[in-house]
């Protein structure tokens, strides 16, 4: 079991890192370009991935081949998300692209890897306080039970919204990475 876990992690990570690097998602100017609302290549990449995998997940789910487990909503999602976003803006990359950047020879990313782990350690130290402040009440993350509709009545409009956003930013902005 342990060996298969190691191999599985390495293979998935390798493919993921290869795609991220090859598509230019790891670039500092691309991440900052997106956050400055100037270069939307990363957004188009993400929403393409989200739309395809959403449809695949729920199709496979309908055939009983997998079960989608949704993440519940609590205050930690909002507060943690804002903290994470601030960090991403300061760094110019997120955890996955950070690791791929180490492989691309970007030295500061090694420093960031330890910083991020330290951030999680600080989280562990503050867990008692965090639990009562942000994680004490949660609501189910299952959007389908919330609306009580057939799930494809939500999935298809969601896909159309994602594709609409891709279409809009693709038309309005070029993949211009030389914004600096």
């Amino acid at each position: 079991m342990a060996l298969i876990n190691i191999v599985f992690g390495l293979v998935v990570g390798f493919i993921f890192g290869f795609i991220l690097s090859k598509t230019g998602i790891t670039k500092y100017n691309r991440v900052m370009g997106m956050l400055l609302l100037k270069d939307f290549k990363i957004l188009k990449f993400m929403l393409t991935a989200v739309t395809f995998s959403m449809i695949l997940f729920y199709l496979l789910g309908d055939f009983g081949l997998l079960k989608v487990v949704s993440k519940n909503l609590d205050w930690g999602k909002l507060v943690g998300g804002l903290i994470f976003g601030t960090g991403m803006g300061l760094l110019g990359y997120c955890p996955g692209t950070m690791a791929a950047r180490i492989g691309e020879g970007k030295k500061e990313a090694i420093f960031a890897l330890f910083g991020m782990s330290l951030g999680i350690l600080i989280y562990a130290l503050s867990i008692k306080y965090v639990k009562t402040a942000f994680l004490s009440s949660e609501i189910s993350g299952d959007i389908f039970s919330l609306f009580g509709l057939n799930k494809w009545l939500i999935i298809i409009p969601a896909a159309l919204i994602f594709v609409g956003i891709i279409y809009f930013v693709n038309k309005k902005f070029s993949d211009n990475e030389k914004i600096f």
Partner: protein
Amino acid sequence: MENEKSNEWHWFKGGLLVSLLSVATYFIFAAIADRNYPFGVTAGFGFIAAKFGSLFSGLNENPVIKRFGEKPDAFIEFFLIIGLIIGGYTASKLSGNFKSETIPAEWVKYHGKSIVKRYVFVFVGSLLLGYGAALSSGCTTGNILQGWAHLSLGSMVAGASFFVAGIITAKILYPKVGGSDGTN
């Protein structure tokens, strides 16, 4: 710069491949390990944090340290991080983009050559990244690439917050670049 751009994959190709990887990962793991495996990266950093944390005896009973130290997904994601590093290395070597760099060139242009200054930002930024990812239970991979695809309410809020805070931070950091100068 010029040759870097020319050999980049199209966003559609990259996005499609990631969606296949993401679904295959979930699916294969459910088949071999009989549990759902959400494709993510954060728990791998949690695994590193747990290894550091286990050096301090007072932290042995900490629920976060225990979770990241013992759960198989954190162990897998640690190796996923190693895989990401090797994948980034291979892709950049193959396309001739591998370049040893201390700090980003765009940063130097606007904020100067001081390595200390940039490293202070990197340190603070990475602490926030780790803390925020742990609190919102996932990073861009787990909460957007996976969570948005699942339409999880928690992930939609988390992912939207990433962008809101990221956009504000970027604007403060580069007030002039972000201005609407109409060059696009």
